């Protein structure tokens, strides 16, 4: 049973990935697709290996700017989410502004950031932060707002202060929402960092792809895409593991097989 479970969880995604790449390879060869339009996986992985040094260097930059932006977004999102969930007046005041802010496409903000901070990592970090904090705020605030009044009553009947209620009930209760939002936020932070690199930067996978595109080195562009996909999966998986670790009680349905 255990082995079968493992085979399904590891085996089937691996198999499916291989099938996709094989189909892609066959399609490219069968229809004789020009290299400049869609390179076959063999060429993409060839480029990946050949240019592994610059790709690795630039991936590292993208990775750490993403994580830095994500880290700031987590701290800021958690704090603002708690503040919004704390009181209706703060909620009413801040929420419309937040929605307005979130509606602005972040690509449009990057030039401003570059103007302020120059080319480099800081615009990428800030873009990652700006794009990813919103879901964290909304989820934490929702978790707090949907706390069952009965649970709060238990504490209030004991004479607990608002702060106690928040600490003992509100915050633990909203942790599953918080960790759930991290999975969304990490993906967005990644998008933010790459978008910023693509608009204007001197380093990072986005910049590398932009340069490769200008030089018509299409396999490198696709190699960049593959790297982005792999990084995205890794970051998502990391937050999913953290989520399961801290909020197992909320997923008891799946845990008690």
């Amino acid at each position: 049973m255990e082995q079968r479970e493992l085979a399904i969880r590891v085996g089937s995604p691996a198999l499916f990935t291989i099938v996709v790449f094989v189909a892609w390879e066959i399609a490219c060869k069968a229809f004789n697709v020009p290299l400049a339009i869609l390179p076959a996986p063999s060429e993409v992985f060839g480029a990946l290996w050949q240019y592994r040094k610059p790709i690795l260097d630039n991936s590292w930059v993208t990775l750490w700017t993403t994580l830095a932006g994500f880290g700031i977004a987590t701290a800021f999102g958690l704090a603002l989410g708690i503040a919004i969930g704390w009181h209706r007046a703060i909620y009413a005041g801040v929420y419309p502004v937040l929605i307005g802010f979130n509606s602005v496409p972040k690509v449009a903000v990057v030039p401003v950031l570059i103007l302020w901070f120059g080319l480099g990592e800081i615009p990428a970090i800030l873009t990652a932060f700006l794009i990813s904090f919103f879901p964290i705020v909304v989820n934490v605030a929702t978790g707090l707002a949907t706390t069952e009044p009965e649970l709060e009553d238990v504490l209030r009947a004991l004479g607990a202060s608002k702060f106690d209620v928040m600490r003992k009930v509100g915050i633990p209760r909203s942790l599953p929402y918080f960790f759930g939002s991290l999975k969304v936020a990490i993906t967005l932070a990644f998008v933010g960092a790459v978008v910023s690199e693509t608009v204007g930067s001197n380093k990072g996978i986005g910049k590398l792809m932009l340069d490769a595109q200008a030089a018509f080195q299409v396999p490198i562009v696709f190699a960049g895409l593959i790297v982005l996909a792999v990084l995205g999966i890794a970051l998502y998986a990391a937050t999913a593991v953290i989520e399961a670790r801290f909020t197992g009680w909320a997923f008891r349905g799946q845990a008690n097989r």
Partner: protein
Amino acid sequence: MAYGRGAAAVRAIDEVTLDIARGEFIAVVGPSGCGKSSLMRLISGLHPPASGTLTVEGKPVAGPLKSVGMAFQNSNLLPWRNAIENVLLPLEIVEPYRSNFDRPRFAEKAKDLLHAVGLAGFTEKHPWELSGGMQQRTSICRALIHEPEMLLLDEPFGALDAFTREELWCVLRDLQKARKVTVMLVTHDLREAVFLADTVYVMSSRPGRIVRRCAVPLARPRELEVTYTQPFQDIVHELRSLIGQKH
């Protein structure tokens, strides 16, 4: 005493005086919507009265009373805490336990209490691993852990099946006997009220007021067998007729 605000305010409870002796077990019964639960929420201080005053031991009640423990129809256990941790919750809030929180000692105390209600072996379980009856036992332990002077129970057995309910009557009976805590039980189960209480108060609806104070003459502690005797049935019958009536 009115309940609610402005135009929506309902005159929920007319003048109600409950004389409760220390260590007494009283039950409040009445038709649904008569203000039983409102009365309890007012006494606990969870809800301030919109008009009128409320005094306990001659002092007006301004906020939640520290010396009460409450249990509700739903166990309201925190799902991320196991049974012991749930029982410990009041000690993390109420003084003087809060300032010198001694976890090993308090955990021992919580464990003893859980053992006393028949939950030995379930102390490390989370709420979803406990049956409804077990959750309610845990909830009662939580209401008692900080040694309140008064236990307020709002239909605590309402959601349980008949057999579990009778089992918990006995648990509550034994706990009250052992700890000599004052208990106020709100219920609409007349057998429950007569079986457990020294004194049963009958409330009428809108506005809620006490229409009858009935001391239960049956000797205590009572066994479940008592519920099938004629004197017991007679009291239940009499109370039932009071509730059906218009006043």
